[in-house]
């Protein structure tokens, strides 16, 4: 359904171009949940924005293709892309408080996303739209939607705001939901509720979800497939259980070792040393090399590419070439 091939997105800066996403390839089937995992700043949000062609200037998509149901979004006319946004592909953002418009009533903001894509497909009355909004609000678990409809975003709690944003995203029954760390800004208990809601939407509506998170533990519970990103590139990809049980890339291994819940009892937690590298002037050699505990002299010399190791698994590391 979604097939990203060799996507590269760049931000020109005074010091040179920042490659926020480089040669990203990823595909997602109908009804699947794919986790996109990586440390902050590795290009996850930019990947999602690229899919909807929403990368803010001066950022731009340099190359690649993004096929959605057989058509390349990157070669569509702007009006066509707009028809897809919010209708076939909807997005849930990270920070619910700043994502709702503070001056409009929450219910009306949900109703707006219904309206946008109703033009030309028959007229619906305001009342019918309100009914639809109320049932959406109920579906995402907003209590007493009749009164909540008329409230402003600042009168909602964080969890309720995120539910409202999910209602906005679901309004046009999208086939694909792009969720950008939808639980990062929330309390742990609320986090679990939102994940549970997304999981229910996935199973009841069959909505595919591209789920971005920096938290491998969350991804491991929630996703069917997982893509691990590092410095703008995918370093490992595969079915979630297999990746967790048997990580191939040293970076994935490192990530797993730094998560308490996933570490086997009585093994020590060990964070990965060092920092994410500067995204300016990266080459096509391994960018994890300087932090890697299995570094070899070859790593700094030879380019690496994402290789298929069978069983749906891919990895970008010299060890597997």
């Amino acid at each position, binding site marked *: 359904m979604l097939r990203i091939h060799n996507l590269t997105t760049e931000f020109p800066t005074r010091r040179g171009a920042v490659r926020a996403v480089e040669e990203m390839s990823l595909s997602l089937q109908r009804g699947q949940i794919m986790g996109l995992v990586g440390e902050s700043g590795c290009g996850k949000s930019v990947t999602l924005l690229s899919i*909807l062609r929403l990368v803010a200037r001066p950022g731009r998509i340099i190359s690649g293709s993004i096929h959605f149901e057989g058509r390349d979004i990157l070669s569509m006319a702007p009006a066509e892309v707009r028809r*897809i946004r*919010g*209708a076939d592909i909807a997005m849930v953002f990270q920070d619910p408080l700043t*994502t709702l418009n503070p*001056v409009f009533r929450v219910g009306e903001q949900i109703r707006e*996303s219904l309206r946008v894509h109703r033009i030309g497909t028959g007229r619906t009355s305001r009342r019918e739209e309100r009914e639809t909004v109320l049932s959406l609000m109920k579906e995402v678990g907003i209590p007493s939607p009749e009164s909540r409809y008329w409230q*402003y975003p600042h009168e909602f709690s964080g969890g309720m705001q995120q539910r409202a944003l999910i209602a906005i995203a679901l309004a046009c029954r999208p086939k694909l939901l792009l969720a950008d760390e939808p639980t990062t800004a929330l309390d742990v208990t609320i986090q679990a509720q939102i994940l549970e809601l997304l999981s229910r939407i996935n199973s009841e509506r069959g909505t595919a979800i591209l789920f971005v998170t920096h938290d491998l533990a969350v991804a491991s519970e929630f996703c069917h497939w997982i893509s691990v990103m590092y410095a703008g590139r995918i370093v490992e990809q595969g079915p979630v259980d297999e990746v967790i049980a048997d990580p191939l890339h040293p970076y994935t291994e490192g990530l797993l070792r730094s998560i308490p819940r996933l570490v086997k009892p009585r093994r020590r937690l060990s964070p990965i040393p060092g920092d994410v590298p500067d995204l300016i002037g990266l080459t096509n050699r391994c960018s994890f090399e300087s932090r890697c505990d299995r570094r070899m002299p070859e790593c700094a010399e030879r380019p690496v590419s994402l290789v298929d190791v069978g069983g749906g698994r891919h990895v970008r590391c010299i060890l597997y070439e």
Partner: protein
Amino acid sequence: MRGLRVLERILSTIPIVFGVAVIVFCVMRFTPGDPIDVMMGREGHVSQEQIDALRREFGLDKPIHVQLYMFLSRAVRGDLGNSLTKHRPVSALIRERLPATVELALGALVFSLVLAIPIGVISAVRQYSFVDRASMAAAFFGISMPAFWLGIISIIVFSVRLGILPSYGRLPYGLEPARVTGLYVLDSVLTGNVSSLVAALRHLLLPSVTLGAPMAAIVARVMRSSMLEVLRQDYVMLARAKGLTEWAVITRHALVNALIPTVTVVGVQTGVLLGGNMIVETIFSWPGIGRLAVDAIFNRDYPLVQGVVMVYALTFVLANLAVDILYTYINPKINL
């Protein structure tokens, strides 16, 4: 709920107005120069007896605190005393002149907002474009340009050289529309008088532009910067992600938010509008209270100056009140 808050806010302006009255009174009394001297200066030689009689007539022989008390207690009843030079009640003079000033101020306000808000928005949306650079340069010019200079230049260009716009007064003699509100443009519309409408608008144009230019410049800059700020917000990204056109994103989602700081600035700038008003009315021989004030100050016409300054103060207070109330409508987080 909101009605009660608004009422509370209105009542809270009373002490401010009272304070202004006291300050105006004191400042006038402590300024050098004596009204009787000014009056007498015109009439050649006068005796001390005549001067004393006049002083008694106007209450100027009483101690200052008594004069203050008299001024305040009359003012509460709407009696601002008699003009020393025009020999008529100050309130009547003001009532006569106020519509002209209000019309000019509204003209300036409309001109500046209609020009500045779109310019601010376009400059932000097309940041660093030619339009942006040109309008921000113009805005810089607009802020630093004194009103008397702009007024005189526009008279020279449009009235003297090109001869396309009048430079004097509100209307040619005899064209006045039937009086409803005293605002000629409005009255012409209400009475369906096309020829006086056209004439009134033509007369209003140069003074409005002169008076509104600094306001337009400031509003354009504030609008641009608040719009730039708003366009970076997540909710603008969400609006785009919903599939809205860029036009809808800007006019529906961004504009209202960007207007919030602008409204505050407009309220504050009303003071600037009032200050410029005296100069502009003088340059364009506009028969409003600004010119009344200038004459009154030169003649040390205490009651008239006091009355006019009270009107200015009241206008300022009311403008800020209006802004506060407007604010609650566009910003749901504020409840006065």
